[in-house]
């Protein structure tokens, strides 16, 4: 398949970026989106041009490192799919594809399509854990947890920290990311004890880092590769005001 690409190029965090046109030809429909970019990069390198920087690591949808904004959508056209799991068969022959970085105030662009997401780590550091030291834990089966509860907690725990929710929110809110961690830990009995402090610290940190407020548009939920529901945000808000 052949494609026309319009890709965001930016040398460094300070410089002004712009969209640049490229073309790729004879791409197999089973190629992943990132492998298509690999092929483009090989040609650029051999031509002596600077290859396009973009993020990835596991290439199996679990590390959360890949983060492209494709045709105006975080992670591209397929719902609940991270960029590395997107294949060229999802595009039309000859289509023009727009590739940009995830954009949000707290995610400065480092180079081309690569962004800085340390803000998400900071939210977790401010309280996204259960304070148990190594060696303190009691026998695991002492506290029984019904399997539905665990499954619901798991739905929230499965967040891969990609930041698509932030990038697809018009307010640049990290509510879905933050709520996912709060909800994961809140639903489990062992996470309830610190719950009040955790929610206060995490929400405050999120605000301080410059993430916007959630206005319930639900855009995040649609793009979240793990399909995390905005009902977790409702839980967060409810608990925050309690």
């Amino acid at each position: 398949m052949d494609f026309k690409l319009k890709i965001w190029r930016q040398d460094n965090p300070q410089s002004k970026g712009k969209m640049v046109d490229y073309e790729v030809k004879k791409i197999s429909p089973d190629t992943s989106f990132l492998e298509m970019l690999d092929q483009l990069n090989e040609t650029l390198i051999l031509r002596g041009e600077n290859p396009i920087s973009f993020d990835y690591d596991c290439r199996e949808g679990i590390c959360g490192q890949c983060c492209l904004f494709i045709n105006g959508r975080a992670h591209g056209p397929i719902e609940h799919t991270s960029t590395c799991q997107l294949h060229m068969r999802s595009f039309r022959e000859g289509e023009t594809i727009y590739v940009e970085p995830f954009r949000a105030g707290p995610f400065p662009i480092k180079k081309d399509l690569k962004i800085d997401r340390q803000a998400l780590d900071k939210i977790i550091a401010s309280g996204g854990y259960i304070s148990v030291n190594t060696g303190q834990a009691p026998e695991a089966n002492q506290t029984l947890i019904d399997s539905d509860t665990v499954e619901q907690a798991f739905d929230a725990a499965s967040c891969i920290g990609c930041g698509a929710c932030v990038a697809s929110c018009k307010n640049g809110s990290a509510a879905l990311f933050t709520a996912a961690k709060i909800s994961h830990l809140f639903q489990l009995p062992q996470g309830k004890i610190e719950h009040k402090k955790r929610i206060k610290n995490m929400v405050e940190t999120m605000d301080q880092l410059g993430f916007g407020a959630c206005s319930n548009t639900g855009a995040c939920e649609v793009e979240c590769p793990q399909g995390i529901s905005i009902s977790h945000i409702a839980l967060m808000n409810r608990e925050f005001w309690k």
Partner: protein
Amino acid sequence: MYYTTDTATTPNAKIPEGDLKDKWSNFKDKTRLISPNNRHQYKILVVGTGLSGASAAASLAELGYNVSTFCFQDSPRRAHSVAAQGGVNAMKNYKNDGDSVYRMFYDTLKGGDFRAREANVYRLAECSSHLIDQAVAQGVPFAREYSGYLANRSFGGVQVSRTFYARGQTGQQLLLGAYQAMMRQVHLGRIKSFTRHEMLDLVTENGVAKGIIVRNMDTGEISRHAAHAVVLATGGFGKIYYLSTLAMGCNGSAIWRAHKKGAWTSCPSWTQIHPTCLPQAGNYQSKLTLMSESLRNDGRIWVPQTKNENRKAIEIPEEDRDYYLERKYPSYGNLAPRDIASRAAKERIDAGHGVGPLKNAVYLDFKDAIATQGKDIISKKYGNLFNMYEKITGINAYQQPMMISPAAHFSMGGLWVDYELSTNIPGLYAIGEANFSDHGANRLGANSLLQACIDGYYVLPQTLPQYLAQQGKATPPESSSEAFMKAENQVRSQLEELSGINGSKTVDHFHRELGKILYDKCGLSRSAKGLTEAIESIRVLRKSFLQDLKIPQVLQGINEELEKAGRVADYLEIGELMCIDALSREESCGAHFREEHQTPDGEAKRNDSDFSYISCWKKNADTPVLIKEPLQFEFTKPTERSYK
């Protein structure tokens, strides 16, 4: 000769006295401690924030040590431990199915084909039960029965159910537990986390580890970090095969650069090739995705009876199917250990029974499981794996069998460590997949998440302080010495050299070529002839790499090609040592199958009288030196590893 042998040196594994059951307690009873008030004066660098590194960093910081962590991803949470799907083993005997610490120890030792230390393996089994308690306390949502008790399943190579799992995301959930524990210490100011920092050299003074040289991958800045101890938790190097189940950034550079500074490398050729991965579909491909081994609990593996079969899988009737694992290994069947399952698949594929467009795969079929258990149950167990399969291949595995094939997956080999996880360089430790560890010549499924966690949460925090205590009063670490300067200069000149070649081929080209050589000659099956050819081809390839590499010539700022070039330069050297290691071991054991050494029915033939040792490779100016650590079996009797 490609190597020389040093028979005068015998490595000291520092195994504590006493009965197998008492060794670890004996160690802990006698180990020297550091008073809580003094701990913050000791600086420890932990390179790697996967399960082993994050758990070690968190545990050491909780004890009060001053810790810095390093990783190449943009967040510690993205280490490749995140990708482990299947589960983690632990001896809880919740199923009352006859499990015990001894049985788990024995299964692991036997699974590794009696090429690991008894004492290490026993400790792994002994500490396993507490890991589950720890993880649950951290909020890891392991699967539960309706009654609320923890659920288990069974994994390849064992006959009990001791695997704990969290959907198909066990590694992710365990890592999030360790990462969160680590971030809690970051928040408390006890850990300084350096993300997007790659370790490019180890610094030693008078043979003792003193620190590392790292490159900031965003700015290109090179910096020195001095400490009282260095811990390498940098994971596996299976990505050396190019196509593998590892992440793109996984590498062998940290351990290899330590090797070049004197650390021994053990059994680098022992690579686990995983039987259930998605087959290669084309040249452009950058990785082979793993489908969890847990699928083998309910899926049946088969190939068509006739060669070059052209019918679709669902059109092939039962009598024309060869369920070769069930046929050859009736007592373990589809749950035969990985090395055996992979080799059996390769044997069938090579014999012309492979399926798929490139005829490089076998079928994994859920038809019978769906018929007996119903689609809902199968979907509850494996739903996300079926979805992932469909996302990548476009095929619905509820309707037709999956196609799978073997892919490079896990490095049993790595830096040599003693019982205390110390390398032969004082002050340098290696944990997790980076060490040669407890898995012998073949790792059992779900044992390596365990090993990474046990090393990091339970062993290292007990053993490393003993080394610090021996140092006496802590003096602040210094990075202005001659040794640091020299190491930094070396790093700079290597980067300049690589970017200055300005040839005509990309890094990936060389990496792909190396991968092909290794899959072909140092993969599932090896021979003296093939290995010798491989060594020669790798040498040619390395020469051409150093003359014809082309990468952007920028040292400042982000340059992914420069990062990759450094890793591939190391891979080209590691690959050669892998072949030499495989050549020196004139026996078959576990994942290491030498064609010259097999039984009449094609099974691995071990040679205990000559090869019951761990190879320890020492760097030398020209040819590597082989030192042997003999394995003593005091409490078990090595038997033939039969799964028939």
